[in-house]
């Protein structure tokens, strides 16, 4: 059996959902050992066990909570000195990317980033990576041992198998030399009622919304449907809405029951983050926009008229 590590990202003492998504895949690929670092790691270990981890390496040093990347890279490198896995899986998230890059450079290994899937193949692994903006899918074989692969969130569905992990203390000393980029304050800006990643309905706006002043129209529709509002990179870059709302390759990946793209042309950069949605509805002035070619229903018309009318219809139906 291949030996697979999962870097189980922790944040604010909580195990991140991406860790459990990775577990679902990792246990198909071999014997899984998870690594959980920082506050809450021991509590996370039992969850990871239920999701198929045979061993969970834990260390609850505060340095993992307070400093970017370096303490975690130290811990993984120390563990790697004791035993070498065939594959290390990371989530393609900000925090895990920081750790994976440092670790790979320290070990002198290559890595595969932004993968959508990874499978065992011919004694090794093959990762599927969106290529050419997502129009193509490249099959990439890592040449290094361990292979290091970063997988996009929402690529796998988490599920419990029921099991108990052996919890092992990961012995490492985090020196001052690794306590450098210190998180001194955490500020929550968005008071999201429904988290974009977890919403059953997502309504996203793009340039076709005309300006930031029209985004409340989308919020009203989202409120009526119990959904969340997303956005394209173009309008985030233009400063209309915060980055936390960005859906796409460089933003969040979502797979809601219904995705409503309003005034979004459908550049690959965007669609790679939402094309796994069950139903896609597009509202756009341009019948030729790429988003129309992938929508279950494409409506050619004026979003600023259609969206408020739709909100009223939803409210009327729900009473």
């Amino acid at each position: 059996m291949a030996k697979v590590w999962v870097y189980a990202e922790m944040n604010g003492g909580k195990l991140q959902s991406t860790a459990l998504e990775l577990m679902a895949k990792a246990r198909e690929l071999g014997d899984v050992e998870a690594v959980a670092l920082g506050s809450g790691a021991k509590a996370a270990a039992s969850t990871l066990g239920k999701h198929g981890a045979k061993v969970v390496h834990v260390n609850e040093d505060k340095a993992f909570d307070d400093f970017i990347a370096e303490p975690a890279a130290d811990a993984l490198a120390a563990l790697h000195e004791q035993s070498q896995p065939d594959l290390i899986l990371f989530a393609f998230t900000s925090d895990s990317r920081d750790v994976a890059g440092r670790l790979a450079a320290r070990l002198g290994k290559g890595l595969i980033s932004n993968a959508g899937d990874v499978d065992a193949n011919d004694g090794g692994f093959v990762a599927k990576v969106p290529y050419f903006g997502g129009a193509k899918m490249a099959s990439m074989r890592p040449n290094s041992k361990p292979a290091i692969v970063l997988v996009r969130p929402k690529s796998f569905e988490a599920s419990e198998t029921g099991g108990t992990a052996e919890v092992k203390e990961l012995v490492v000393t985090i020196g001052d030399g690794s306590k450098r980029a210190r998180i001194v304050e955490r500020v929550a800006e968005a008071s999201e009622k429904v988290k974009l990643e977890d919403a059953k309905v997502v309504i996203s706006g793009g340039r076709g919304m005309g300006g930031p002043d029209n985004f409340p129209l989308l919020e009203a529709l989202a409120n009526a449907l119990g959904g969340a509002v997303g956005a394209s990179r173009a309008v985030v870059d233009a400063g209309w809405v915060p980055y936390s709302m960005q859906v796409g390759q460089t933003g969040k990946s979502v797979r809601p029951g219904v995705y409503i793209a309003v005034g979004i042309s459908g550049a690959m950069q965007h669609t790679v983050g939402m094309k796994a949605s069950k139903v896609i509805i597009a509202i756009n002035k341009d019948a030729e926009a790429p988003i129309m070619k992938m929508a279950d229903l494409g409506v050619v018309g004026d979003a600023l008229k259609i969206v408020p009318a739709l909100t009223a219809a939803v409210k009327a139906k729900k009473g």
Partner: protein
Amino acid sequence: MTISRRRDNGCLVKIVVTVKQVPDPNATTVLEADNTVARDREVVLDPGDECGIEEGLQLKEAHGGEVILVSMGPERARDAIRKGLSMGADRGVLITDEQLAGADVLLTARALAAAIKPEQPDLVICATESYDGSTGMVPPMLAELLGLPQLTIAKKVEVDGTTIKVHRQTADGYQVVEASTPALITVTAGIAEPRYASLKGIMAARSKEIKLVGLGDLGIERGEPGETIEGVADAEARKAGAIIEDDGKAVDRIMQVLAQAKVV
């Protein structure tokens, strides 16, 4: 800025900005039969790097010093550096070598690190990720290879003496992250509105130095690539459904779809 040290060349601060020439994100692009990106397509300075250069220039204007652009690519990538020089950067270094064609992230990071190290910068600024590759892996690798702390996804940067503080974007807001320089930061597109090059700037850029270096100059040998591309296939495409013109009844059709999906 408190002057912590004075360099031999008289500069107070050295800022390196990594830059990349990428296919024009606004141009229609095609793939060749062998699945490589057509080489003759329009290329531009990565828009994310323009923001990094702008941030570097603003820090220079506030604190003094020198802004050096370091890039890796074919010789024509000089154009991307030249654009940054016309915005106001002081000089450029281009790592160019046939051996680097198709370089993986580790080789890219090693080459950049080798070119940057002799500069002994106080600050290295990278875009969070490139427009074309979007792997986002070069900056953390570069930080490790240069032995620098990394302050990533910064949407705001403050420098005070040898302390650097950034607002690091998170899913629900931001973190304030602090470190001592030298350090590496990655910046988001929202950090600063890139300036347009003035005519004076464009003229001045013509005489600014762009140093070309090869892998041999950097003492690097190309190793085994980190990955092998075994095949490229069309991504699973969704089938288009109905496309209707809004004749006043579009809302009814949308409501039908929402009802089928059981969300109303």
